């Protein structure tokens, strides 16, 4: 009996802490899973954190592409039919090919690309965009993000409930920031049973940090049916002697 009481007290305290951290859930908004599968269990309440800032780090052009792919998949889940998203990048970095976005379940015309000039302007633009509650999500592509800047962004989304993705490409240090999570997405060898050729996109998705949740590591495949998890035994690091050409 004592233990049960303790547990409820701890639960209450946890909720209070969540509130203090600005993660309170809207009363009108019933939190429900957005359709990412078991990955969502890593978050508190087993629901992907909407209305928060997620940080993604990539260290090479290949990783950056997979990270963009992963962001696109989540965006596709967040704005299935309506809504707009702002994709803000520092000038020379934006490489998104709009035509390919459709393959990730988003209408490319619902994404507005902004090429802000310097890092300072980009951060300003991201903050302004995050304050606009008419948007569903904001993707920011930058290199460096200080703790103070990340705090500003977090404060902006606490009011507007816009979901933010900060994609950091080759940051100097992986410094601590006030985002709810930190992801790393990298490519892994695709596999097609029987037929030669390149298979569906496969990624190694690592959730390195998550506030009040459990970190995790998954191997997923993006195919026309949606996101599929690859069971560990299925991952065969193939030693291919002959090249497969299709």
């Amino acid at each position, binding site marked *: 009996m004592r233990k049960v009481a303790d547990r409820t007290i701890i639960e209450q305290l946890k909720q209070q802490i969540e509130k203090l951290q600005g993660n309170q859930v809207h009363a009108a908004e019933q939190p429900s899973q957005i359709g990412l599968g078991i990955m969502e269990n890593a978050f508190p309440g087993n629901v992907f954190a909407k209305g928060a800032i997620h940080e993604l780090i990539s260290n090479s*052009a*290949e990783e*950056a*592409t*997979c990270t*963009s*792919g*992963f962001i*696109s998949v989540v965006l596709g889940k967040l704005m299935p039919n*309506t*809504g*707009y998203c*702002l994709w803000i990048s520092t000038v020379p970095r934006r*490489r*998104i*090919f*709009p*035509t*390919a*976005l*459709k*393959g*990730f379940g988003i*209408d*490319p*015309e619902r*994404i*507005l*690309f*902004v*090429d*802000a*000039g310097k890092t300072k*302007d980009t951060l*300003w*633009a991201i903050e*302004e*965009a995050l304050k*606009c*509650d*008419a*948007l569903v999500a904001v993707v920011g592509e930058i290199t460096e993000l200080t703790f103070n800047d990340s705090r500003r962004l977090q404060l902006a989304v606490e009011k507007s409930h816009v979901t933010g993705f900060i994609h950091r490409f080759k940051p100097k240090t992986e410094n601590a920031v006030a985002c709810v999570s930190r992801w790393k997405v990298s*490519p*892994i*060898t*695709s596999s097609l049973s029987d037929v*030669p*050729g*390149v*298979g569906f*996109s*496969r*990624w190694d998705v690592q959730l390195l940090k998550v506030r009040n949740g459990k970190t995790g590591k998954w191997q997923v495949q*993006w195919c026309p049916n949606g996101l599929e998890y690859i069971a560990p035994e299925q991952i065969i690091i193939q030693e*291919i002697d002959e*090249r*497969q*050409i*299709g």
Partner: protein
Amino acid sequence: MSRRIAVIWFPHLVTDRLLRKQPELKTQPFVLVMTERGRRIVKAVSIIAQEKGIHVNMVLADCKSLLPELIVLDYDETEPKKLLTALAEWCIRYSPFVSIDLPDVLILDISGCTHLWGGEENYLEDIHKKFTAFGYTVRSAIADTIGTAWAVCHFGNNASIIDTGNEIKALSTLPAAALRLEPAIIDKLDKLGLKTIGSFMMMPSTALKRRFGQSVLKRIAQALGEEMEITDPVEPVTPFQERLPSLEPIRTAEGIEIAIKNLLQMLCERLQREMKGLRKCTLTCYRIDGVIVKTEIGTSKPSRNTLHLFKLFENKISQIEPDLGIELFVMDAPVVEELQSSQDALWTVSGKDESVIAELLDRLSGKTGVQAIHRYLPAEHYWPEHSFKEAISLSEKPSTEWRTDLPRPLHILPAPELIEVSVPIPDYPPLLFRYKGTIHNVKKADGPERIEQEWWLQQGLYRDYYCVEDEHGSRYWLFRSGDYDSGNVKWFMHGFFT
């Protein structure tokens, strides 16, 4: 008081305009031509060329044989209308009712206007003087009706004034063509020996109608004032402009803020009345030391929201230097567009969202520039760089579907980058390639997907695209440009797959 009409005819409207722009052509014969059914037809002739026997509707080849040194320029069909409208707007100083009659006539309703110039003679003289100074050849006439004035202007003495009641006398000696009849009827009249208007004007109307149709009767009645002729006057465009003179010179940011707010209020009220929204707005501040300070804002969607527009100006206030003080603020909206009044009802939530986003974009573009914001729509092209196009506005809908049947990389390089490859046999994907100093061993490959140049857009070599995966699982989009037969083969990296 009877109606008085002035008709101004520009016999060389287009060529006079060209001479105004290019005075060096003055001493040379030139023609303006347009292609009609495969032939180059002369549409306008300069005075010098006309003297050499070239006239409108001649074929260019004939003109060239007559006059080899003839200069040939292109004719723009819309030019006469644009020119006449501009001239008509200018002529509003002479009369509030100015209408245009294509291709080269202005009709002015001058009832009660001429006394300001001291009579009709002086009035016409002034018009002639002004237009001649501009370089236009003009002929004009004043009469009670458009028909008579037109006839006298084209076929009578220049600058003649026909008094009330003298129409029949003035018309009777003029040729039948002066009645603005169709060429077929004129030919018929000519064949019958009815060369002047006087020779058939008094014939019984039943006979005229039977032989030449209703139009002859109508034109005679119009010329004599028995039938009213209605014209469509040009409406002068009042610019969207508001002025705010200040009692004392304004020197503070607060003062400027108040001025902007007041001006926006006035401007937006008018926009609201006319169901319009502004796309561009300039604020001109006249300082007491004679310096003019200008700032400009632009919006991505037509807007008449005072608060939003003020926010856009707010960022610019710091750039306005009041110095000794500003005595006059002028706000212009040079670009306005139609904007239906919005309805803030439940079912237009998405529309409201859109306007909120548009306002956000305005704020962003105020800092980064409009060219920094892009929205893409599908375009029907296979060539990857052409497969999407920029949308002009937030509400523009895609006209075609996005294609998803072919593999396309999520990240694309701004320009393809040259790579070094090792290929076993032609038309095979590479065994390995070197990109930015790193060697990638190709383990899996798909392709080739050949994309040909769109010859109507650009020339060049086709591309054979391969989608390859290296030993680390990274997937790339490579292409070979050109074929091995030509010996001019290059490989490029174009994108990264997820």
